[in-house]
């Protein structure tokens, strides 16, 4: 009898194993299918592009968070850092009247610099990442208000600034698929981050740190330097997010930002990156971010109240992590 059942269970495990590995992706497909059946409007090009556009800011922030989380750390400051970068861009472009490229550079540099500081506090002063970035989150929230004088900075004097996120380079070539630039930038950042993670030393040490930091140290690697580099890179990516949100709103809104970090972390977790570090993928995070926006969009189309959307997102996070635990148990 055992001879008959043994191979059956074996292949059963294999199928469910493959399914679980693609769990986030299967989840996304399932959501899309359900929503397209429930509403004919869901799969309209216009709506699909709206979903992608809505994913761009959170997606970019989530990629930044992914890098840090793979090291076994956490970055709670990605949201307010994004705002701070937007405000810096506003100061450079509107208040100082500098040209657009300088403004773009300023945002990314400001992000990198702040990440460098967070990373240094964590690596050199040995302040736990949770605390260091919690402090940084509040500092940047305050600084954004201070620098901007608590008022939004508008980009009316910089024509073309809103094209960074809203324009469509693709649409000017293929008018039938007007993919907004913001979405393009999201995929570009994702591609670069995935490349860095798999092909460069920075990526290798990102995984190594999250896997066993002490072992990396004992291997003679300058652990502090690489850890700081990861936070700085994440900061630079937050600078990109700052540009995206400022461009979309055509203004730097200094009061915005807090709360974005939790959406970003949610996307990372749904995408299968382990909060204990050592494993994770950019593609997973991208799918995680898409799941969140598809849910929000689909539920809105079905006229489900905003409050309930949050409840659903919360449940999905718990479900996603539980599914991952189940997967690991079966392996």
């Amino acid at each position, binding site marked *: 009898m055992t001879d008959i059942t043994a191979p059956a269970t074996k292949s059963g495990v294999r199928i469910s194993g493959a399914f679980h590995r693609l769990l986030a992706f299967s989840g996304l497909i399932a959501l899309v299918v359900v929503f397209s059946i429930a509403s004919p409007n869901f799969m309209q090009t216009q709506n699909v592009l709206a979903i992608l556009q809505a994913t761009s800011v959170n997606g970019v922030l989530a990629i930044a968070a992914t890098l840090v989380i793979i090291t076994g750390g956490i970055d709670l400051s990605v949201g307010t850092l994004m705002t701070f970068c937007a405000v810096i861009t506003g100061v450079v472009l509107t208040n100082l009247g500098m040209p657009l490229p300088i403004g773009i550079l300023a945002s990314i540099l400001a992000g990198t610099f702040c990440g460098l500081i967070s990373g240094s506090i964590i690596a050199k002063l040995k302040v736990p990442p949770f605390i260091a970035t919690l402090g940084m989150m509040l500092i940047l929230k305050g600084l954004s208000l201070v620098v901007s004088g608590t008022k939004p900075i508008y980009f009316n004097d910089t024509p073309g600034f809103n094209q960074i996120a809203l324009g469509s380079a693709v649409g000017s070539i293929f008018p039938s698929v007007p993919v907004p630039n913001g979405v393009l930038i999201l995929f570009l950042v994702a591609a670069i981050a995935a490349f860095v993670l798999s092909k460069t030393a920075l990526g*290798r040490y990102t995984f190594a740190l999250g896997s066993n930091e002490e072992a990396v140290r*004992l291997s*003679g690697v300058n652990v502090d330097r690489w850890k700081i580099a990861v936070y700085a890179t994440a900061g630079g990516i937050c600078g990109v997010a700052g540009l995206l949100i400022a461009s979309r709103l055509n203004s730097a809104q200094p009061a915005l930002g807090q709360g974005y970090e939790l959406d970003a972390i949610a996307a990372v977790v749904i995408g299968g990156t382990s909060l204990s570090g*050592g494993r994770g993928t950019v593609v997973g995070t991208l799918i995680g971010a898409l799941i969140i926006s598809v849910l929000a969009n689909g539920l809105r189309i079905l006229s489900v109240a905003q409050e309930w959307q949050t409840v659903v997102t919360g449940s999905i996070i718990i479900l996603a992590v539980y599914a991952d635990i189940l997967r690991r148990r079966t392996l």
Partner: protein
Amino acid sequence: MPISPATALSSSLDASVTPLVEMLDIDKAFPGVRALSGARFELRAGEVHALMGENGAGKSTLMKILSGVYTRDAGEVRLNGQPVEITSPRQAQDMGIGIIHQELALMRDLTAAQNIFIGREPRRAFLLDEGALNRNTHAIFDSMNLKLEPTVKVETLTIAKQQMVEIAKALSYQSRVLIMDEPTAALNDAEIAELFTIINRLKAEGVGIVYISHKMDEIKRISDRVTIMRDGEYVGTVPAADTPIETIISMMVGRTLTNDALVIPNTSAAPVALEVRNLNRGREIRDVSFSVRKGEILGLAGLMGAGRTEVARAIFGADPRESGEIWVNGNRVGISSPQDAVRAGIGYLSEDRKQFGLATGLDVRNNIALASLERFIGPGGVINDGAMHETAEKFIRQLSIKTPSDTQEARLLSGGNQQKVVIAKWLLRDCDILIFDEPTRGIDVGAKAEIYKLLNALAEQGRAIIVISSELPEILRLSHRIGVMCEGRLTGMLPGGSSQEEIMRLATLRPSAVAETNSERKSA
């Protein structure tokens, strides 16, 4: 990359040759502890030099100084006769000093190749050259005669294979000095033999090897000289071949130990305390049945991965079982969690004390009380510290736990004393069935004898005891009966005092082959 030592020194042990490493009058203090005081060590090219001493004798500290993990407070380190300052692990590696740490220092989520070349990845421009990485790793594995894919993730490897990856990593540095801290702790006999082949090859190539181990038979087999340390001080250096084990042990402990002979009490009339019937769990546990009587010590022998720990964890409810019954004192008990097991009077002392057995951050008193906290809760839910203190003191005396007080943090105790704290915890909980998984792993010789004495005393008091051990001398020294496991099956039950050969025969009996033929016969 072939293993080629950078030194051209011959492998002769001629004393006139400048030693590869000299460590002179090394002092090292940590807050509150003087770890080393005037410690000395000398290593020649082409020798295996064993470093021995009880836990806390300072062996690991001394070697961490040599490998750049710690810096010394005083003294001198010479490499090829030249005084050197070693201030970081990286610098030590660059000087050709490699160390294989006792706690495997690998990154579980990375591949074997990525682990070996961490910090020195081959690159093309600014990109990692994964192809070269895997080729280099393959060459090292080949030179070690190791069948392992460079791209395999470390977390999927057995401890033994992980150990081999560590060795490959040390070899990849072209080390002239290789420090091995308890390299065989998790290896079975075949793997130890493989390791020794590699050690002998390195030795022939002029690499100096520092070998830290508690296992006497290994020291005799592999090493040329033995340096003994005690309490952070140098005791002496002796040739391994012609120094009796007793002499080495007495140098280590500073006194002569008496080795009590095995006395098997007649327990055939005693009631059965624990009976396991047809226990099954996947491929790890296959149809295991046995019983233990009150006052009996049952040894469970077998190679790594034979399923002994799995059986223990299944009995204790730490892992789910697929089928099987557990009977305690003649009653069938439903055990689906450790909580159920403890309620039934079963205590399990894990092989990994730090991870599972001991709350290292808590003090001795709270560790002892951990499983029976409800006894110390007074009116209003307040913990009665006075009563807890009295109880802890009682056990500290009874088990002679060496600790300054019962408020000492458990992590600061030596391995043997930590083990006693865990034993005290289960005794206080009235557990009459105690399962010891590798009770003396990482415990030094002196403390070992004490643990043995304690286990005998516990059995005499009528407790039923199961001892899982990978060290055959330990099994033979303690067990009244010996169960042998192989590939998840109980392949035999031997009387106490059986021969090592008989145990090994059963431990290597391939039951899977037997089972397959059996099932074929059944289906036919």
